[in-house]
């Protein structure tokens, strides 16, 4: 590996990839920089896709991550509409779908995740997932008032799209394997309030294992409905599938890099000498929680990109420690969560409710406060975030 980098290639031009490029220039790296972008759009931000872009409130230009001028000033060679097919770690060469090879002396893998699909349904007209601008525009075209949308998956993306569709005048049914939406992440108590929020806006809920989707029904290549495991059926004009996403790492098969759930990295986000990963695709041991994790939140992409952009220039092995943050916008509510809550042992609503549009809830794992959720409680949430950063014991700050 060369002493100082002179040819950095970044695979992926979304939040993590683009921010890495910007961070490199900010940190004084002035040699060759290439971004490999599977998409053809100007690099853009994903969270608004399921919100403002889907409803038509924003145009496509509003989701761009950088102005054309700012992008040009980065002096980065963007290879648009091209994906990586193979990585030769020993020879430091990246192969692309346009049959060209890119040599590099440093590589950043920021290829993100790919939405999961229902088996045997991906080709059906009227069935949608959402990851890209093109996905969003295709779905938006079908969200016509009066139609019946069935959303499969009551996680953050599914609930956001359900809310957007209600706003557009559709009839919406939300299908979820657990009894309440967002229950897998936030627990049954908050889930019950989220359920009430949605049913209050007219969403029909079909939840529980008996309402698992067995298959989609179709006619002449277009979806017509859903068949549930209990044998019942439900007609649908449009089906939106939001059942999670998998890290985009198949192209790394045979590269020798460790790719279980994502690119497996050391605490400094390196996957091999001179090779880093950042964003949704990166799994690493987070010193802030002493846990291995892969964070699919927007702010993590930027934070990891900043870190990688610094490590590439200083060559130091500093670990990346972070307390994640994410938010979801549904109807007139913004739910905000700081911390790492998967596998929590206890969640307690300290004050308020979704109905009141003000709520504060905290999460425990072991004896530690590991997460805090707020609605309309930003000031309190900032204080709880600091408590999480400080590894505060639950017993010290939460009574009973």
């Amino acid at each position, binding site marked *: 590996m060369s002493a100082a980098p002179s040819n950095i290639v970044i695979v992926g031009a979304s939040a993590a990839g683009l921010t890495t490029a910007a*961070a490199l220039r900010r940190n004084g790296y002035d040699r060759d920089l290439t971004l490999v972008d599977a998409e053809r759009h100007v690099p853009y931000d994903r969270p608004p896709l399921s919100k403002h872009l889907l409803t038509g409130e924003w145009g496509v230009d509003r989701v761009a991550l950088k102005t054309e001028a700012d992008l040009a000033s980065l002096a980065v060679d963007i290879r648009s509409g091209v994906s990586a097919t193979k990585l030769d770690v020993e020879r430091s060469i990246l192969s692309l779908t346009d049959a060209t090879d890119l040599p590099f002396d440093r590589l950043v893998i920021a290829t993100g995740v790919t939405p999961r699909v229902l088996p045997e349904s991906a080709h059906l007209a009227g069935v949608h997932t959402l990851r890209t601008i093109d996905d969003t525009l295709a779905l938006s075209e079908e969200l016509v008032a009066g139609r019946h949308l069935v959303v499969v998956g009551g996680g953050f993306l599914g609930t956001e799209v359900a809310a957007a569709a209600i706003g557009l005048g559709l009839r919406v049914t939300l299908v979820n394997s657990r009894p309440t939406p967002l229950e897998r992440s936030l627990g049954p108590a908050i889930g019950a309030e989220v359920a009430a929020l949605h049913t209050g806006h007219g969403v029909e809920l079909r939840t529980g294992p008996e309402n698992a989707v067995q298959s989609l029904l179709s006619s002449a290549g277009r979806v017509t409905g859903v068949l549930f495991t209990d044998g019942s059926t439900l007609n649908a004009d449009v089906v939106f599938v939001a059942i999670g996403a998998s890290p985009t790492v198949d192209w790394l098969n045979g590269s020798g890099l460790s790719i279980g759930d994502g690119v497996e990295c050391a605490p400094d986000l390196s996957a091999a000498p001179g090779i880093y990963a950042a964003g949704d695709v990166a799994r690493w041991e987070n010193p802030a929680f002493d846990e291995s994790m892969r964070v699919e939140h927007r702010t993590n992409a*930027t934070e990891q990109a*900043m870190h990688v952009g610094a490590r590439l220039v200083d060559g130091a092995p500093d670990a990346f420690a972070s307390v994640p943050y994410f938010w979801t916008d549904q109807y007139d509510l913004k739910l905000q969560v700081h911390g790492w809550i998967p596998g929590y042992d206890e969640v307690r609503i300290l004050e308020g409710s979704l109905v009141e549009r003000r709520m504060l809830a905290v999460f425990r794992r072991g004896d530690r406060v590991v997460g805090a959720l707020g609605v309309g409680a930003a000031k309190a949430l*900032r204080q709880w975030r600091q408590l999480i950063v400080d590894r505060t014991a639950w017993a010290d700050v939460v009574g009973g």
Partner: protein
Amino acid sequence: MKVIADIEVCVAAGVCAAIAPDVFDQDDEVGKVILLDANPGDDQLDAVRDAVLSCPSAALRLVE
């Protein structure tokens, strides 16, 4: 320098307020950005550049 904050694009992550607390704050309810000083002094340049780079929704712009 001039700092511009697009409150509609802001997602209330609070990263800017953490990096450059003399220039950015957050409101008490939703936590959206409050621009304390639209024309900060040069001593804030580094912090503001970092804040602009770190904003997770690209809501901040710096005109130098």
